């Protein structure tokens, strides 16, 4: 089950459990535990079946993303077909394409503008690790996980729609099992979350726009 999904209730649960075991009423605690798990299941199921992606394409991968959303592959079968034009209304950022250093700052800003809970799929080789720009792309960021926490990486150049759908299903599995929170926490512990592109104030031209 989805452990730690509702942290604010954990303390309450512990206090009730300790009180009730002291009273010898462990059945009450067990029932509470079950209820919370059930609520947890409801919330995560709702979330994973209504992931609203941010319509946000950077390069040729966006063409495949559009194909995934279109009728033949129909991403809406998985509840993720509602592409929103605003980061304020989106849960899922599909980074589809090459992320340059200049765009990296904007990606980070857009990610900050999305409301929690939020997830990121790095689509294609460029967004995963720089891909074809690995050696000679002086301007390309070597992976978008240098600025935002990535939940699932979709390999390919560009990935076929099936691959993106697979990444989406994988992300849904992660949300179901609570692994997405572990990934997010691990990213925030890592040194990648502390580079200046992530933490520095935005440069002048970003502020002006």
């Amino acid at each position, binding site marked *: 089950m989805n452990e730690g999904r509702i942290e604010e209730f954990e303390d309450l649960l512990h206090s009730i459990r300790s009180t009730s075991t002291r009273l010898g009423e462990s059945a009450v605690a067990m029932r509470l535990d079950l209820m919370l798990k059930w609520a947890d299941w409801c919330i995560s199921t709702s979330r994973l079946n209504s992931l609203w992606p941010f319509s946000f394409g950077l390069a040729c991968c966006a063409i495949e993303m559009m194909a995934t959303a279109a009728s033949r592959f129909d991403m809406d079968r998985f509840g993720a077909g509602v592409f929103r034009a605003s980061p304020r209304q989106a849960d899922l950022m599909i980074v589809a394409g090459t992320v340059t*250093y*200049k765009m*990296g*700052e904007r990606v980070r800003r857009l990610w900050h503008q999305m409301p929690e809970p939020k997830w990121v799929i790095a689509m294609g080789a460029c967004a995963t*690790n*720089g891909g074809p720009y690995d050696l*000679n792309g*002086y*301007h390309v*960021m*070597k*992976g978008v996980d*240098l600025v935002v926490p990535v939940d699932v990486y979709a390999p390919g150049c560009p990935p076929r729609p099936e691959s993106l759908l697979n990444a989406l299903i994988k992300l849904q599995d992660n949300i179901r099992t609570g692994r997405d929170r*572990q*990934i997010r*926490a*691990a*990213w925030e*512990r*890592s*040194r*990648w979350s502390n*580079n*200046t*592109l992530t933490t*520095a104030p935005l*440069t*002048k*031209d970003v502020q002006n726009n």
Partner: protein
Amino acid sequence: MGITVSKTVYNQLKTQFGDAIGEYIETASPFIEVKSESIREVARFCKELGFDSLMCLSAVDTKGMKISSSPQENKTQKPAPPKEEIQVVYHLNSTFTRDKIALKVCLDRTSPRLPSVSSIWGVANWHEREAYDMFGVIFDGHPALSRILCPEDWEGWPLRKDYVFPERYHDVEHKRKPSGAEFLDGEKKQ
């Protein structure tokens, strides 16, 4: 359809500007060489001639460039290697006569600088910013000459032949070290 320099246009420019216009060279893609000081006057004159559209403005770095001799040329006489310079090339199109010409300005590599033509063709504004961004060509009289593609705090001119790739941008390494280990370790422990 390649670029063709009609002899009449060349003669008109030559009589108007004299020494500022280079020799007429018959090559596969002919161009008219213009002295950098008079490019704005030449451009204005070309616009009055009917070249109302600036199709492209770009720069070339000829450092280390090799010339492959065309089959028409004499094979025994090797062409001299081009001088190391930065060239700014203007491709003009006339929407009335469907005539196309190319102007070329050769500049010193150490401090390339020439007058802007953005007051004549508005499209030159962004093209000149791009040439400035990639080659460091400074256009005098440009309304806002700043980098257009690279971040504002980028160092160096990326499309110059002697450009050294940066090792990092801010503190993000250009070469990614294979030490995402700490990220994975956290996963394995759990």
